[in-house]
């Protein structure tokens, strides 16, 4: 085992004396978590706090005729029973659209359903009580009369004229459609020696954060101020939305986010029951807590994926890919989720298919249709796992068709490493990628030739192992092009404030947030390096809209690349401020001084001149001794947003090695590899752990996870016993490798790493299963998750 601080420091080009860039520093905020001393929202208790439980619709689609609340109001401990109509007086509804996704439409969504429930699990009434148990007792006393309506649950028929329209005011069930036709697609298919077609299906699945969604809203009537403790990835976004829909100023809202028990995109959206909890606090003038139980999580946490992609690829005998074409259909919930919308995943798929390859001919259509099922929205690696599995599935099927090795066909088509800047057929702009270098690294790391030999030997003994690959690209460090231009108040810039305290230690207040990825560690490493102090002297403050610069939070792999860069610039600015004062105190030119290990030194010789503690003492307590006209500024704030590129694309390649038991259909994962390029690596250990965690989430999608709905829109497996997630015993060891192509858009050059694992793993596992079964003549498996029964069907055994 490699332990972080046993590693010798590997210093990068950003090295200064005592640099932490490129070093596996343990996270400073982690000790409290291993002791069970974290503070999660589920742990928060406030004076006079009440608990809310929601009455949820058992129907996927039903008119609400009558809600009888009298018995619940009389129940022990119950404080209030509130319907959607009553809550509408406190909070306005919202519509999840973005103007840059042309034509995307949705209907107004209230915090609690008013006349009609549109999915099984939608809240129709709130019961607030002294304890959660009493609130649930109250829920059991609420009687609702429903008139069931037709449930629209098949995306394939959602647009048929005979299918009822979920929101008549919208005219049809189409939320969003995008088409693209680039190059000479028909001619390119005609020129191909082989055209391979397949229909890929991706099971609807969800995030299953171990801590369910949790919120404590505290409206203080005396202060006219709302304090919200929320497990969210985007505190400033939520501050804006709470204010907007309560009709108060943002200044009246403080969002506090301490420890968050997993997020992965699940906790970056507006949830009706959380908005209702905030509205209830305002209505009742006291703190109200809502923590979803696991059953509620399954029917209300956003779902994702659920795409059917008909796809084809044209290929010549020499391996040249001539064209890609896809037709994507996805069934979201009855509403587009606010404010990020439910059109982004389909849009990403159109953007990303074929992305690693130098192929100029591409046609795509994506349609997003409304369904009476739980809402769908952005979950880790949005669109990437689908686009990657489709692209890489097609590439390996094409390779098999023409009898070419799967690595060789990639070598012949991946965009050349010296071809940058480059652009994909869909118009994505790439600053610098390293597909070929990554592939070569993977080839060596996994001993590909050796594995092929082993595979061949074992096949002779009736053991079927498969090797599958997935090259991928990853969207990170999004600029305003992602959401801001579409009218959403989601900040793409981020800020950092660095303060020197009276003992010469620094605090960094950052707009990015921590949900376990290590954002606080990265910010501390960067600030310590930029300013010049040991990391033990840095304290990072996140997740508090009253006390951090305005920022977007942590999602889309932006914390290190954007928040880290802001911290770097703030640290550099504070160093300049401190050296200006030090120069005045020491009668030296500031440019001849530096700060190293917390001490002001002569830049040339390193001779120690003044400790930061002494400098801070003089500035704060004896400013009278400073020369006249010298005013120290020991706080510096800087902001950063990528400007040169709309996104910092990263790239990589994964490989899966597995064994299929052809009698039972069970898949045993033997090993997984990932080589990726996230530019400058600030903390190698944290990057590797992002990759590993992401890979396992992708494996879950490939093999286990599926929200199963019946035709009436009932979720059949909404609990952790029936919905399978990856557990330790079934998961392989995962080996990581790196190539570094820093972005020139920032000083640090860091790109994101959070999506890479999830982006590539499902495609790699799919390809490995098909590689294992190919000699048996099995029909290629393209319908995730690949459960044993699907594998046995492909083998013709059942």
């Amino acid at each position, binding site marked *: 085992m490699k332990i972080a601080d046993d590693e010798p420091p590997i210093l990068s080009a950003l090295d200064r004396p005592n640099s932490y860039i490129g070093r596996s520093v343990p996270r400073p905020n982690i*000790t409290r*978590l*291993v002791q069970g001393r974290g503070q999660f929202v589920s742990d928060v208790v406030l004076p006079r706090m009440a608990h809310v439980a929601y009455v949820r619709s058992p129907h996927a689609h039903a008119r609400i005729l009558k809600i009888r609340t009298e018995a619940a109001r009389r129940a022990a401990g119950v404080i209030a029973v509130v319907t959607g109509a009553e809550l509408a007086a406190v909070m306005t509804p919202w519509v999840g659209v973005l103007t840059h996704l042309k034509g995307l439409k949705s209907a107004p969504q209230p915090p609690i359903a008013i006349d009609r429930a549109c999915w099984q699990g939608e809240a129709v009434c709130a019961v607030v009580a002294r304890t959660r148990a009493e609130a649930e007792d109250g829920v059991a006393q609420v009687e609702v009369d429903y008139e069931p309506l037709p449930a629209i649950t098949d995306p394939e028929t959602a647009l048929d004229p005979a299918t009822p329209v979920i929101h008549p005011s919208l005219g049809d069930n189409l939320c969003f459609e995008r088409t693209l036709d680039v190059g000479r697609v028909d001619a390119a298919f005609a020129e191909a020696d082989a055209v391979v077609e397949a229909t890929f299906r991706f099971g609807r699945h969800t995030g299953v954060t171990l*801590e369910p969604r949790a919120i404590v809203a505290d409206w203080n009537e005396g202060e006219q101020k709302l304090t919200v403790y929320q497990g969210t990835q985007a505190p400033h976004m939520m501050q804006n939305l709470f204010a907007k829909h309560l009709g108060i100023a943002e200044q009246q809202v403080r969002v506090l986010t301490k420890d968050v028990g997993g997020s992965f995109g699940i906790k970056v959206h507006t949830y009706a029951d959380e908005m209702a909890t905030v509205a209830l606090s305002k209505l009742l003038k006291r703190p109200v807590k809502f923590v979803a139980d696991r059953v509620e999580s399954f029917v209300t946490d956003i779902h994702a994926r659920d795409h059917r992609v008909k796809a084809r690829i044209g290929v010549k005998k020499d391996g040249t890919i001539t064209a890609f074409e896809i037709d994507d259909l996805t069934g979201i919930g009855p509403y587009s989720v606010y404010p990020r919308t439910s059109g982004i995943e389909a849009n990403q798929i159109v953007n990303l298919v074929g992305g690693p390859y130098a192929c100029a001919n591409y046609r795509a259509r994506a349609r997003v249709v409304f369904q009476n099922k739980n809402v769908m929205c952005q979950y880790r690696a949005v669109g990437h796992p689908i686009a990657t599995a489709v692209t890489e599935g097609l590439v390996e099927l094409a390779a098999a068709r023409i009898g070419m090795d799967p690595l060789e066909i990639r070598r012949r088509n991946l965009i050349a490493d010296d071809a940058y800047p480059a652009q994909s057929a869909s118009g994505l702009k790439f600053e610098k990628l390293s597909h070929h270098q990554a592939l070569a690294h993977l080839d060596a790391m996994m001993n590909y030739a050796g594995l092929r030999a082993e595979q061949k030997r074992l096949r002779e003994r009736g053991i079927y192992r498969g090797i599958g690959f997935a090259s991928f690209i990853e969207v990170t460090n999004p600029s305003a092009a992602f959401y801001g231009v579409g009218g959403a108040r989601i900040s793409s810039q981020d800020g950092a404030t660095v303060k020197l305290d009276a003992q010469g230690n620094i605090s960094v207040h950052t707009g990015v947030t921590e949900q376990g990825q290590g954002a606080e560690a990265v910010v501390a490493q960067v600030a310590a390096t930029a300013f010049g102090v040991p990391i033990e002297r840095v304290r990072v403050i996140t997740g508090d809209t009253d006390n951090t610069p305005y920022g977007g939070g942590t999602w889309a792999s932006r914390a290190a690349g954007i928040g880290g860069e802001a911290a770097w610039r703030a640290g550099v600015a504070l160093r300049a401020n401190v050296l200006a004062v030090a120069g005045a105190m020491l009668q030296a030119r500031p440019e001849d001084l530096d700060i190293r290990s917390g001490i002001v030194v002569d830049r040339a010789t390193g001779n120690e001149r003044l400790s930061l503690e002494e400098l801070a003492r003089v500035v704060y307590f004896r400013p009278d001794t400073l020369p006249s006209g010298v005013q120290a500024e020991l706080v510096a704030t800087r902001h950063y947003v990528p400007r040169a590129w709309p996104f910092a694309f990263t790239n990589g390649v994964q490989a899966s090695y597995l064994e299929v038991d052809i009698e039972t259909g069970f898949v045993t994962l033997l090993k997984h590899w990932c080589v990726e390029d996230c530019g400058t690596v600030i903390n190698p250990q944290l990057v590797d752990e992002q990759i590993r965690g992401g890979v396992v989430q992708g494996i879950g999608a490939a093999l286990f996870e599926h929200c199963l709905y019946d035709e009436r829109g009932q979720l059949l497996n909404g609990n952790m016993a029936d919905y399978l997630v990856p557990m330790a015993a079934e998961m392989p060891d995962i080996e990581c490798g790196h190539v570094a192509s820093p972005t020139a858009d920032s000083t640090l050059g860091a790109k994101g790493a959070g999506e890479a694992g999830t982006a590539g793993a499902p495609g790699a596992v799919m390809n490995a299963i098909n590689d294992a079964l190919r000699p048996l003549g099995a029909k290629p498996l393209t319908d995730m998750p690949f459960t044993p029964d699907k594998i046995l069907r492909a083998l013709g055994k059942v």
Partner: protein
Amino acid sequence: MSEHAHDIALTVNGERVAARVEPRKTLVDFLREDLALTGSHVGCEHGVCGACTVRVNGAIVRGCLMLAVQCDGATVETIEGLSDSGEIADLQDAFRRRNALQCGYCTPGMILTAQDLLQHGGIPSRAAIRTHLSGNYCRCTGYHAIIDAIEAVARARAGESR
């Protein structure tokens, strides 16, 4: 409080506790809500995820599958108690240095389960560690780092150098 509430007396992290609890209250809710021991977490409430793992009379149990009233006379140990006693200090240090946790929500249960395995002595194989942890869900890490950390502690306890 219901009229059917029961009086229980138990030892929690070495402290003697007397309380009146409703029969329906689970052990983990009792620990979190009545004793404010929030280090034991609630994940699934049906015995699958292991976030609520605590030790009762020396054996690890799911705090969501045991009722507080069943703990009358029992000795209960939680992550708070084991942290303060120093019993798991090496595991905690290895988890920290190996980054064997991200959000940290599964970690108390994970560490109690790891300690349960390592108490038996010896150096378990990676596969054996994985099997022992197979009832503890972690969404963040992909498990690899957790296995590394536990394996390193097993070796260190057996006298091998890292």
